[in-house]
């Protein structure tokens, strides 16, 4: 019963941190997508040097735990600011800043692969069709390739984003307060009594937010595939 009580008591306190984490998460998504597109562009169109550099970067991000990346960004940036530029204020920078940087860098590398494979999976005939009616390269990209590639990339992207939201739970190791960080704080306050209930509440809230994100992404996918569905319906109507 003690656990059940602490479960109920913890829920409102845990919910209160969700809006700010979601806001930070939106920022991470924005920067991650831009970075991912830039990296994918280098890998597709860049010269050899750029390609090798991006490959090493992606291999590093994929080959090391995110937890270490967070800690390296945290301690690395502070060391550069304090010892390199003599900025003593760096030790008081908010944890959210480091989380923002580390997660954007991480997400960008993973999205790069998704974007690249989506880009290459667009049929080359589509590009040729654009060239045949004398479209400029930028027009071909934005009007022909991008809408199709976005649709292909979206399911993978939404999986990555949901994983990234869950991974925010690692950030309490540098003192960032999301659901997990708050839960850990609450469990610490009660000196471990009712900790099971608190962590169960944390788990339930993560699960709910992830389900919510899943529903949102599905809606977006549904919306983006609208013209495809219209076209398929038209073909089905003609052949029947």
């Amino acid at each position: 019963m003690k656990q059940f009580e602490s479960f109920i008591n913890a829920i409102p306190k845990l919910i209160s941190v969700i809006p700010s984490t979601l806001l930070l998460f939106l920022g991470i998504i924005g920067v991650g997508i831009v970075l991912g597109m830039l990296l994918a562009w280098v890998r597709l169109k860049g010269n050899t040097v750029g390609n090798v550099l991006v490959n090493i970067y992606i291999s590093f991000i994929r080959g090391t735990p995110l937890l270490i990346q967070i800690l390296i960004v945290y301690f690395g940036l502070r060391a550069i600011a304090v010892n390199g530029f003599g900025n003593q204020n760096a030790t008081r920078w908010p944890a959210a800043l480091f989380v923002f940087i580390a997660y954007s860098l991480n997400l960008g590398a993973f999205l790069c692969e998704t974007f690249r494979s989506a880009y290459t999976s667009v049929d080359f005939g589509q590009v040729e069709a654009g060239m045949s009616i004398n479209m400029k390269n930028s027009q071909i990209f934005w009007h022909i390739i991008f809408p199709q590639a976005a649709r292909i990339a979206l399911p993978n992207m939404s999986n990555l984003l949901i994983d990234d939201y869950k991974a925010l739970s690692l950030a309490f190791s540098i003192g960032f307060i999301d659901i997990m960080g708050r839960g850990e704080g609450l469990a610490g306050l009660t000196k471990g009594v009712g900790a099971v209930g608190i962590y169960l509440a944390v788990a339930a809230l993560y699960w709910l937010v992830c389900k919510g994100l899943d529903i949102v992404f599905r809606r977006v996918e549904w919306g983006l595939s609208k013209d495809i569905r219209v076209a398929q319906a038209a073909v089905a109507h003609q052949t029947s």
Partner: protein
Amino acid sequence: MIFNFEFAAESFPKILSAIPVTLLLTVIGMAVSSILGFLMAMARIEQKKFWSGFSSVYITIMRGVPIMVQLYLVFVALPLAIQSIAEAMGIKTYVDIPPMVVAATALSLNYTAYMEEVFRAAIQSVDSGQWEAAISIGMTKRQMMAEVILPQAFVEAIPNLGNTFIGLIKDTSLAYMVMVMDIMGEARTLAGAGLNYLEAYADAALIYWGLNFLLERLFGIWERHAGVFNRKDVRPAGKTIGRTKVKTAAAGR
């Protein structure tokens, strides 16, 4: 000084010596989750009502909750559970569970969900003609699975097994949160004395990177060897093997 190279070089071999702990944790997690995941996958393939319902609920829970939260939950709940069971049996003890067991339990439970999906996808990717062929020559269900379906499914599963294995190695880095002295734990302990966190974690990152790079290569080699029957470039030239020919013959009739 931003980066203390001397400290990084000095502590590198010490952190390197913690690799066996990380690998042990990975292997235990992989073994347990493979067995449980395989059983769940078989239950879902054979559409056993209770077990397939159970495993789909299990998977949504395990995939919707961060592994960090699961680790903490096991950390606080496992001793409590064992203690209450012991008390119910009338034994008065103080339960102290080794951190390695906590970490291995949490990782195994979490990765069971992933392994179930790996195995299920692999089994379902075996061509339906193979199932039909096995039934047509009167094989029992057990024979069909053991001699026709599973050997092919296993080869299909190797790339995903590799990815899961690497994912698991990376996730073992969370185990230092419950005081396991793996690569991360060793790095943090070494760093703590002189606050050389950046250097120690950079060392740890290099070690994880090298380990995963090596494993990726190994799984690649294994995949090429195991999948030899499936490769286009080693098939005898000029012969059609497989369903293309069969299908056209059936259509002609």
